[in-house]
């Protein structure tokens, strides 16, 4: 089983982003704080939602999720890309670890980074605003499952990407638009029916909805559907990431 090997590798992945905390943890927290100040405090007082929730509280779960999934994705994608670029991924590929263990090591590293970011933002929001968490265990569950999902997605992109641009492109052209269109800053009630229906096909919308439900005790749509979408995407991405490291597709000749 080589559990020592697996945990050493996982520890390395966590240690990697902790050593670089001013490049990994701090910027995510800072940008979320700026979003909260700019959108929540300055614009929030002018926006009224039909559901009766204060605008600043409404956007906090979305902003948290935005940071969590970005941090998790960036961590595993960049760790693999750096390994490929500097060739030390070869050290990983020759280890007495299974494809499942290697992909899990990368995924856990990314998940922890996403989780630190998510918890950090929620703590800051509790301190700076009147935001409170409705259900702590369920909030933690959504932070972990979404972080895990996007960390696994980062592993997949990291394996396929040939350049740093490719990693950045996925983030800028796919994840970022999907996040903004996933209801971070607005309620779906504000959208025309056509765009509202389109948003239902966006998995990130359901992830944000899940966290909104667990933290505010309010859901725009079915919380059960959020749970199913989160679990499904987590399993699919996890399976693909494991398969890539088991077969060596795109990483072994």
């Amino acid at each position, binding site marked *: 089983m*080589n559990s*020592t*090997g697996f*945990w*050493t*590798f996982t*520890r*390395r992945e966590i*240690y*990697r982003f902790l*050593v*670089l905390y001013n490049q990994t943890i701090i910027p995510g927290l800072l940008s979320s704080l700026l979003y909260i100040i700019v959108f929540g405090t300055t614009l929030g007082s002018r926006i009224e939602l039909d559901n009766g929730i204060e605008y600043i509280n409404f956007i906090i779960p979305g902003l948290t999720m935005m940071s969590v999934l970005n941090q998790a994705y960036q961590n595993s994608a960049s760790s693999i890309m*750096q390994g490929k670029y*500097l*060739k*030390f991924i*070869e*050290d*990983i*590929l*020759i*280890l*007495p*670890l*299974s494809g499942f263990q290697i992909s899990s090591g990368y995924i856990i590293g990314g998940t922890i980074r996403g989780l630190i970011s998510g918890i950090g933002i929620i703590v800051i929001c509790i301190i700076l605003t009147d935001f409170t968490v409705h259900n702590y265990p369920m909030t933690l569950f959504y932070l972990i499952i979404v972080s895990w999902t996007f960390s696994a997605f980062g592993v997949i992109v990291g394996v396929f990407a040939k350049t740093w641009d490719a990693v950045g492109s996925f983030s800028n052209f796919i994840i970022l638009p999907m996040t903004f269109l996933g209801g971070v800053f607005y309620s779906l009630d504000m959208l025309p029916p056509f765009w509202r229906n389109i948003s239902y096909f966006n998995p990130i919308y359901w992830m944000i909805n899940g966290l909104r439900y667990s933290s505010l005790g309010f859901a725009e749509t079915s919380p059960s559907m959020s749970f199913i979408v989160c679990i499904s995407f987590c399993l699919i991405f996890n399976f693909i990431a494991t398969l890539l490291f088991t077969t*060596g597709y795109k990483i*072994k*000749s």
Partner: protein
Amino acid sequence: MNAIEIQSLKKTYHGGEEALKGIDLNIPKGSFFGLLGPNGAGKTTTIGILTGLINKSSGMTKIMNYDTIRDFKITRKLIGLSPQEINLDVFFSIKEILTFHAGYYGIKKKIAKENTNLVLNKLGLYHKRNSKARELSGGMKRRVQIAKALVHDPPILILDEPTAGVDIELRHMLWNYLKEINKEGKTILLTTHYIEEAEKLCDNIAIINKGKIITCGSTTNIIKEKSNNIIEIKLESLDNIDFNLDYDFKLDHSSSSIIIKSKTVHKDINFIINYFKDKSKIIDVKVINGSLEDAFLKLTADKNE
């Protein structure tokens, strides 16, 4: 017992390049084995397949009798690899890199730290333990590569061009160290472009070219069988020598010397000296023993023709 066993190993890369065309190789436990060949011959592909970096197309590879695919978790623990290209983790200090590396192979943290200090001392790197890879010289980085291969104390060491770009002093230091650990029982598989290095270190050698093993055996036998010794006789004058006559040995000449290639120099030398002393006054006789480089060039040239 063989430390490494390879049977009918083939590798065809995507795109159709046939890197290995069915090689067979047995490397005895405890030996210092050289795998030599020109660029693109298939050395790194062979090593890649043994270590799990490259997927084979067909054939069988075993480490200490364990299959490298079925029993990969066992075989990979038995191997320490120092790859051709320097690939050091940029985030951590040398000490951290090595401690992590030992841990990946299942070594507990306390022992991993002890092993790290041991290899750092042995390779003269202890004073650099807190430095990062980018702060080291080329020779130091090369030594860290070797330290990485050794830190989990594997019985088999695979060194792919371990002294490339290393100065002569450090190369000799590494040679002595490798000889020492080989004597202690480690099996070493070495690939190198420095043929002199292989001749000095390896007791057995295989030469690979264009994906095929063209010769394999003890270094001494390969040199004896495949290379020629050279006898250089300096004569006062070459006027009386008829180069068109059919001699029993290969004859060549420079301005004042006769150059004779012979496999059995000690048998031929008396006859040759007696033969030429009748033709002209002998000023000097030099015998240059055959080398592995001769044998290598001859064998790879033969196969290229």
